């Protein structure tokens, strides 16, 4: 340490009482700031920010000794502090969509995401503080989320109320709606006639392969990743993409359609089975 620097600091040792006094003052200000937390009283935002700024400058000036230390330290610290504050303000301005068209655009775009998003939440949590429900299952299929135009529910929704309908109505409603979902999402690989081909197994007559409704739903919901299977005597080990972005009703309908087309007569799959399949996890032979 340089000699002359030392003398400069020699007589600057404050009495410990000053520091304790400052510490108490800071504690009091913090205590006042906590008021709104416990709903005792409200503090306008400006005042709250001002109180924090006062605490900030007191700690910098007295605890970090900028008040009575060499001026170079203040010149070194003040501009970056101002710069960082301006940067935060600039980012907030640029992101709050100061430009009005941005504001209502971002709501429009996010509204599209929201509708895709909300339908997929499988488990919900209620906050003990605000009694508000929020989605606690973060697993959202990104691909479906991102497709703005495509993949939307262009197949509309089911014509019957699945729970209330009687069995024959339920079967008819599910197969009719399932057909539309099948042609949009499954025909691409398993073909419209259910005969598949190439790397894609046939569905017509494969009743004993996909077995119980829950099993069938597990295969489709979680998909298969190079799992060796044998359908109607033919071995496959390809990839069945997971269809977890479809809702329970859509999956129940398409599976029922499959189980009642091309000569199959293998009973119905209900949304409850699909929900059960989601929690049971991927199917293994």
């Amino acid at each position, binding site marked *: 340490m340089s000699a002359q620097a030392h003398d400069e600091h020699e007589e600057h040792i404050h009495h410990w009482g000053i520091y304790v006094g400052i510490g108490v003052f800071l504690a009091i200000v913090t205590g006042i700031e906590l008021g709104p937390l416990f709903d005792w009283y409200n503090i306008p935002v400006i005042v709250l920010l001002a109180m924090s700024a006062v605490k900030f400058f007191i700690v910098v000036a007295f605890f970090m000794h900028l008040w009575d230390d060499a001026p170079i330290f203040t010149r070194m610290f003040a501009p970056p502090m101002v710069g960082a504050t301006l940067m935060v303000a600039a980012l907030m301005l640029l992101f709050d969509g100061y430009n009005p*068209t*941005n504001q209502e*655009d*971002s709501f*429009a*775009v*996010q509204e599209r995401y929201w509708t895709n998003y909300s339908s997929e939440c499988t488990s919900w949590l209620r906050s003990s503080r605000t009694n508000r429900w929020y989605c606690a299952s973060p697993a959202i299929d*990104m*691909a479906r989320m*991102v*497709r*703005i*135009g*495509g*993949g*939307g529910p*262009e197949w509309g929704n089911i014509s019957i109320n699945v729970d209330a309908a009687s069995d024959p109505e339920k079967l008819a409603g599910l197969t009719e709606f399932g057909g*539309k979902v099948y*042609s*949009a*999402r499954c*025909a*691409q*690989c398993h*073909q*419209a006639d259910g005969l598949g*081909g*190439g*790397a*894609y197994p046939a569905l017509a007559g494969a009743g004993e392969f996909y077995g119980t409704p829950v099993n069938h739903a597990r295969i489709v919901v979680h998909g298969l990743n190079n799992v060796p299977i044998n359908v109607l005597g033919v071995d496959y080990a390809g990839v069945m*993409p997971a269809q977890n972005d479809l809702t329970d009703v859509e999956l129940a309908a398409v599976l029922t359609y499959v189980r009642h087309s091309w000569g199959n007569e293998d009973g119905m799959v209900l949304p409850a089975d699909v929900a059960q399949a989601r929690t049971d996890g991927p199917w293994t032979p």
Partner: protein
Amino acid sequence: MSRFRALFASVCASLWLSGCSLWPAEDNPFTTVESSSDFSDAILGVYSLITWITCVVGVLVAILMVYVLIKFRDDGSPGNPEQVHGNTAMELGWTLIPVVLVIFMVVPTIRTIFEIADAAPDDAIEIRVVGKRWWWEFEYIEEGIITANEIHVPAGRPVNLLIESDSVIHSFWVPRLGGKRDAVPGRINRMWWTITDEVAAGETILYRGECAEYCGESHALMKFDVIAHDDAGYAEWLELMKAPPVVADAAVREAGEEAFAAGGCIGCHALTNIDGAVARIGPNLTRLGNRRMIASGTMENTTEHLASWIENQEEWKPGTSYNKLGDPRFDGMLIPVELSEQQVDALATYLSALQ
């Protein structure tokens, strides 16, 4: 468009190398210095003004430097030149001159910024532009028409573009009709212009556009066209797109539709005359036969090209085949089933017949 703006634009445009640009549109389809819309008129105004100022300043500084280099060469005489440390008056001088020049450039710039940014008139044709991984989807919102890689607009009427992306950041740029706007996923950027060129009856004018923001392997092959019609031509195009085309030759139709279903094209592509083909993952193929180019500007629209494109996409546009990354989320093009030769030809002839 305020009257003043048109006047200002024409004054500056005339500055632009006396009207005949060095890069005419005939052999420079992407030239930025020949304006065909009010938007690019405004830009060209500021563009030529600033170009003139910078060129003049550049030439003057160059002359000054050459003079100094020649005049003050070391002539071998002993001793040192006069040790001049500085001259505050000159410093002030060459600070104020740039300030004046900057003001001269800033004022028209800020005026043009606010003109370009004002909202489109209500009667504008609204087109949603969605940038995808390596092609463009255009949706005429009121008309309910969805097409790809080609925008048909009437000259003289304002067109309002709502530009967004559902993959990475692209940039929608038609140099002759005005500046570019980025297609940022999660946000809608607006741009509107009115084509000022006259279009003869029954004729069309082609303006070429491209993606300007790096978006992956086939960023270079993501071009599109804007085709200007006169009002009648535009109305006729609208009907054409709304009514499903009738393929006269039954054999071609059956083989084509059978191959379309067999190849799984129905899973991604929409086609008005096949019911159930409504998916919007791939481009909409309605009246594909009428399009000038296919695979977003990569090749001319001929049956052979269409066949070879269906056969092997990777060779034409690197990065477009799914299995390249094995990632289903990839917006590439995949034919899930091995198509036989005849099926490919049937598809190609069928799609080319959709005129």
